[in-house]
């Protein structure tokens, strides 16, 4: 579904991602883990067209999306839940959701789509007329995921959705991702919580210094030695 092929990204001559290649198959959850500064967010930003790669290609269902504007990438069917949630605090929860429809190729919002998302995140329905800024961090994260899902993307990208959330709220977010998987939505999850990500994802790639180091499967999640080695390699 989503293929990253030999991706090279540099900031002012300094390489942030080097020759990175991986695939996310239809309906899969793929994790991208690694320490701060490994190039995880850079990879997502390159996919979304926020940064122009120096080399390599990014393909959605076989078609290259490199060189497209961020709004056109979103309209081609890739939705990003950005780092720090980036909900619009001064808009209502409902208006935030309506913004998610901006990426819809049909441009239509239907009750059915909203209802499907409300089923996943009842809190969003309950607080739909409130200002989004009045929501707690965990609720805002659910809104951010809901807002990405109403666009009915082919691929959902998440940039550290558990960042800054309390452990119980992290549970809520990971539960939500498991339910997103049940809907058959393809997910690329960037996370720092390595163990939970490896346990959830079909496959997890460990990256460090902008390079792919290791591929882990759910069975590795409880293999402490392997997890530690992945980070120290």
């Amino acid at each position, binding site marked *: 579904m989503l293929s990253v092929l030999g991706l090279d990204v540099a900031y002012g001559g300094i390489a942030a991602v080097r020759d990175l290649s991986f695939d996310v198959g239809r309906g899969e959850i793929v994790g991208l883990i690694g320490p701060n500064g490994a190039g995880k967010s850079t990879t997502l930003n390159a996919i979304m067209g926020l940064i122009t790669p120096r080399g390599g290609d990014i393909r959605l269902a076989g078609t290259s999306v490199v060189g497209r504007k961020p709004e056109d990438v*979103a309209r081609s069917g890739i939705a990003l839940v950005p780092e720090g949630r*980036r909900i619009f605090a*001064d808009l209502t929860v409902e208006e935030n959701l309506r913004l998610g429809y*901006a990426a819809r190729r049909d441009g239509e919002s239907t009750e059915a789509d909203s209802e499907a998302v409300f089923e996943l995140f009842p809190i969003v329905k309950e607080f739909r007329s409130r200002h989004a800024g009045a929501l707690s961090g965990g609720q805002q994260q659910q809104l951010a995921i809901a807002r990405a899902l109403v666009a009915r993307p082919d691929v959902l990208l998440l940039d550290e959705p558990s960042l800054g959330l309390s452990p119980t709220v992290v549970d809520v977010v990971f539960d939500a991702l498991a339910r997103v998987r049940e809907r058959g939505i393809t997910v690329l999850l960037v996370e720092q919580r390595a163990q939970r990500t490896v346990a959830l994802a079909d496959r997890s790639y460990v990256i460090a210094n902008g390079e792919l180091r290791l591929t882990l499967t759910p069975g590795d999640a409880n293999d402490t030695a392997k997890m530690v080695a992945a980070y120290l390699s």
Partner: protein
Amino acid sequence: MTLGLLSISWQVIVDSIGLGAVYALMAVGIGLVFGVLRLVNFAYGQLVMAGAYALAFASQWDLPLVVGIAFCFAIVIVLSLLMDIVVFRPLRAQSPAVMLVATFAVAFLLQSIALLAFGPLGKSASSLGYLNRPVTIGDVDIRKITIVAIVVAGICLLVLVLLLERTTMGLHMRAAAMDFRTARLLGVRADRVIGSAVLISALLAATVSVILTVQNPLVTPDFALRDTIVVLAGVVVGGMNRLLTATMGGFAIGFVSGLLGGALPSDQSQYLPSFLFGLVILVLLVRPNGLFARGPGPVERV
């Protein structure tokens, strides 16, 4: 009839509201573009000036009133879109300082072109001159144009609020003004949002041209220049980060400017700018984020 010590007549108050209404329209035009481009368009006054010249030529050529006004709108819209495509968009990624200086350059370039093309003496735009006649309400004489200005500004602002609050494009514009990058990531089209803001801003500038040429039919290259500076001060005083506070700032500075002008004896009217801008500095010292801003907010470094 007078109010207290300042001997401000009702006529001055109504005129001040009229001036505030015109300045509020200019503030919205400047504020809308600032919202999506983070660009303080100093050249906004030259759009008004171009519209005023269009009206002057229309009255020189004896064009019918409606055709003349349509000509004014066409000129302002074309010039505005040109400014956007040639200067603003290519500079969008640059720092606010670069963009501000670019708009200064555009402003003075247009003013110089007007000076070279049309001369320093000015042209007369007199098609709507009859609107300067007063109507008497109670014992107060009010010029018709003042009433027209207040009503037109009210309608424009109402339509704009409906557009921003009730339409999808309005929602996209509001979101883009808050966080353009995230809005784009959600699929909001940057070109359309910016184009809409520039277009609405141009419509408002053309409206202001029509009203101002009635009040001041002599169109010179520096037409509306002083008004733009005052409105920019008002926008900053009101609070630049939100369209509502920017608009209120525009209205307030127009209203206060009108009142001060009315309160000062006519042989001391040259002190008006000193009083006005002294007041601006005072307000900024006390409330740097804006007179009408809620609490401490992020300060735009413009």
